[in-house]
C-alpha cells in the first residue's frame, strides 16, 4: 500500500523537475529537426526514438511536461476557483440563492464536460489559453456541487451547533470551522482534478483544439503520431505513457491525502 504512494510521489517529483528544469533531463532542443534521423526507433542515442522530422521524442516529451502540467493545474485552478464561488454562494446563501445556483449548475451538468469545452472553443477559437479555460469551465459544476454539499454538511454538523452554543458569531463560525473543514476536501479535489484536467487538455490538443504542432505538448504529439501509429509505435506510445503516468500519479496522491484525512 505504502509503496504505491512512494512510487506516485517519485513520478510527481520527476515530472516537476521536467516541468521546471527540462534542460537538466534533456539538454537538447525539442524543436530541432534532423531530417536524416527521421523515424528512428528507441535506442541509446534516442531513448524514445524520433518523429517524422527527426526530432528527439524524449526531449520533446520532457519539454512538453511543463505545458501539459501547467494546463492541467491552471485548468483545475480555474475550475475550483469558480466552484468555490458557486459552492459557497449556494452553501451559505439564502434559500433562493441556493436554489438558483443549484439549478444553474444542473443546466451546466446537462452538457457532457468535453462537449461543453468544445462549445467554448468553437466560440473563442482554439489555442492553449482557451482550451485551458474550457477544461476549467467544464470541471467547475462537479466541484461546485461537492463544495456546496460539504459546506452544508459542515454548517449543519453538531460541532457547528456546539459553536453556536458557545456564543460564536456567524463570521467566526465560518472562518474558524466551516472554511478550514471545506478546505481539506478542496485540497483532495484539486489533486485528484489535476490528473483529469491533463487528460482532458491532452484530448483537446489531440483534436487540434489546444496546443498546435510543432509545439511540444503531449496531446499534440499524440495527434501528430496518429498517422504513423501502425509503423512507428513509439511516436504515440511515449507521449501517451506520460499522460497516463501523470494522471495516475496525481490521482494516487489525491487518494492518499483523502485516506489520511479520513483516518485522522
Amino acid at each position: 500500500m505504502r509503496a504505491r504512494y512512494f512510487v506516485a510521489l517519485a513520478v510527481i517529483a520527476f515530472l516537476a523537475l521536467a516541468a521546471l528544469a527540462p534542460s537538466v533531463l534533456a539538454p537538447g532542443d525539442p524543436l530541432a529537426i534532423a531530417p536524416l534521423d527521421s523515424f528512428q526507433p528507441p535506442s541509446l542515442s534516442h531513448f524514445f526514438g524520433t518523429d517524422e522530422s527527426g526530432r528527439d521524442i524524449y526531449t520533446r516529451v520532457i519539454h512538453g511536461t511543463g505545458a501539459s502540467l501547467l494546463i492541467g493545474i491552471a485548468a483545475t485552478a480555474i475550475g475550483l476557483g469558480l466552484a468555490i464561488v458557486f459552492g459557497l454562494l449556494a452553501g451559505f446563501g439564502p434559500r433562493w440563492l441556493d436554489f438558483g445556483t443549484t439549478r444553474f449548475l444542473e443546466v451546466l451538468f446537462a452538457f457532457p464536460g468535453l462537449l461543453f469545452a468544445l462549445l467554448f472553443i468553437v466560440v473563442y477559437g482554439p489555442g492553449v489559453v482557451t482550451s485551458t479555460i474550457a477544461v476549467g469551465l467544464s470541471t467547475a459544476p462537479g466541484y461546485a456541487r461537492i463544495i456546496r454539499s460539504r459546506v452544508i454538511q459542515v454548517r449543519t454538523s453538531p460541532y457547528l451547533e456546539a459553536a453556536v452554543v458557545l456564543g460564536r458569531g456567524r463570521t467566526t463560525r465560518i472562518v474558524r470551522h466551516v472554511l478550514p473543514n471545506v478546505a481539506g476536501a478542496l485540497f483532495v479535489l484539486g489533486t485528484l482534478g489535476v490528473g483529469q484536467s491533463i487528460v482532458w487538455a491532452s484530448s483537446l490538443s489531440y483534436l487540434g483544439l489546444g496546443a498546435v504542432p510543432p509545439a511540444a505538448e503531449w496531446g499534440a504529439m499524440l495527434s501528430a503520431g496518429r498517422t504513423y501509429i501502425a509503423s512507428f509505435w513509439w511516436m504515440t506510445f511515449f507521449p501517451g505513457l506520460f499522460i497516463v503516468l501523470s494522471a495516475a500519479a496525481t490521482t494516487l496522491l489525491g487518494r492518499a491525502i483523502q485516506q489520511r484525512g479520513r483516518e485522522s
Partner: protein
Amino acid sequence: MSLLSVSGLSVAFGARTVVSDVSFELEPGECIGIVGESGSGKSVTARALLGLAGRRARVSASSLAFDGLEIQDATPRRLRSLRGREIGYVSQGALVALDPLRPVGREISDSLRLHTSSTPAQRRARVLELLAEVGVPEPSLRAGQRPDELSGGLRQRAVIASAIALRPRLLIADEPTTALDSTVQAGILDLLERLREQGTALILISHDLAVVSRLASRVLVMNAGQIVESGPTAQVLGEPRHPYTRRLIAAVPTDRPRGTRLTPAAEGAPVSVGNSGLQVLDDPKTTVSAPEATSTPEFPTNPVVRAGAAVVSASRLSRRFGGTLAVDDVSFTLERGRTLGVVGESGSGKTTVARLVLALDRPDSGDVRLLGEPWTTATERERRALRPRIGAIYQDALSSFDPRMTVGGIVADALTHGRSTRAGAEVTALLERVGLDATVAGRRPLHLSGGQQQRVAIARAIAAKPDVIVCDEPVSSLDVSVQAQVLDLLDDLQRDLGLSYLFITHDLGVVRHVSDDVLVMQHGRVVESGPTEAVFADPREAYTRALFASAPRIAVWRAPSERP
C-alpha cells in the same frame, strides 16, 4: 450431555490475546449471561462459537462442542448449515443488521430458503407467522416494508424473527436491547424469555447487568478476555466475590440515592454493594411492581444552593414539526444548583426541549428565560452576551468537536477570552478538573476513548463558567463503569461550581440517581413532574407507572427448582 460445551477457548488477533481460557457449559432451555465492558472479549467469544471471529483471529480451544459436534473440526459447509439452522445469532447493532434496500419479510425468508425446501407461498406464510410470534403488529403490512420504515423496536424484532426462523436450539443475542427504549426493551426481553421457556438455549451478552439478571440463570463476568467470576446469577450479583464484579454492580445508578458515589472514591477504598437496590425475588415478573419508597437518602446538601433562584424558566413551550406537536405546552423551572431530569422515550420531545432551552430552535409559542433575561424571544445577537452562561454536552461527544482540532484547541476555543497567553494554563487546569491528564491536550479526540471524549466535552462546557449545562443523554453510549465515573464527575462539578443541570435521558436509573426534580414526557407533553423521589415512589399517571415498571432492575431470581 450439554447442548454446548466450551472449554479452554482462546482468541488472539496477532500477538494480542483478546479472549483467554474461557470455559462453560449450556443446557437446552438455559440462559447464560455474559457481562463485561466494551473490549472485555464477550462479543468475540460469541463470534468464535459461530466460527465468525474473522480471518485474522486465531481461535483455539481444547473443546468447542455443539450437541456433540466439534465445531473446530467442522467443514465450512457443515458450519454454514449449523449457523441459522441450529444456532441463531442476533448481532450487536441489529438496527443496522438489516439490508436497507430489502423488505424485512424477504430478509427473514432468506434462512428458510437457504436451509429448507419450501415453496414461496409456504415461506411467506411462515414469515408472517414468525413476525406475529415476535410481536410485530400487522405482520402482512410490516413484511413488505423496508427497515427504514420500521421503528427500532420493530427492526430488532424482525432481526430476532430471522434468527429464530428455523427454531435454532441455541440463540446467541449480543446486546439485543442496547439503544432501545425501556418499554421496548422490556418487550424484547419478554420475547427472549418465552423462547427460552420453549426450550431454546440462550447466550445473552450485555454490558447491562439489569438485562442479564432478568433472563440468565447463570452469569459469566468477563474482564480483559478472562472470566473473572461465574456462577448462578443470584450468587454472582448478590454476593459478588471478585472486585471487578463488585465495581460493575456498584456502578449501576438504578436505586442509588442522589449524591451517592458510583465509583470508589480512591484506590483501594471498599465499595459497598449492600445497598445497591438488589432485590431477591422468586420470579422475574414481580419486578414489574413499582419500586418501594426508599428511606430519605442521606447526602450532604449542596452548599451553593440558593434555593428559589430560577436559572432557566420555560413557560408554555410548544413546537410543531410538520403535522406533529413535538413539544406541547411544556413549562418548568430549573433552580440554581439543582438538577432537573427530563425522561421519556424516543420521540417524546425531550431533545426538542433541550434545543429550545439552548435557543438552537425557536418555539412556536411560549418562551424560555435564562437568568431572568429574555432568551428565546431575543435575537441571536442579543443572546450572544448570555451564551457563556449556558453550556451543553451531548450523547455523541465526538461529533460535537471540530475534527481538525486537538483537545487543547477545543477547550481553549471555549474560553471566553479566546486564545491568549493564559489559555494554556487554563486548559491544563480544566482538563485536570475533569480528570484528564494534561498531555491529552495535544491529541485529537478521535483517538480518545468514549469516556475521555465526554470528559473533554465537559471541560469545554465548563470553560466559560456557565450557570447551567444542558446534558442531552450524556452517558447513554458509555459503559456502565465509565458512565458511573462521568456521573460522579458531573456531581462533583455541580457541588463545586454551583451548576444547574437540565438532564435529558431515557434511562430511568440514571435520571433517578442524578435528578432533584423530574419531568416525565410522552408525545411532547409533560405527563408528570415533581421531586424525583416523590414521583418515583408514587407515580400517579398510568404512563409513568408503565414506564417505571418496564425499567430493568438488577433482580436476581431463583430458578423454580431451587425454590424452597
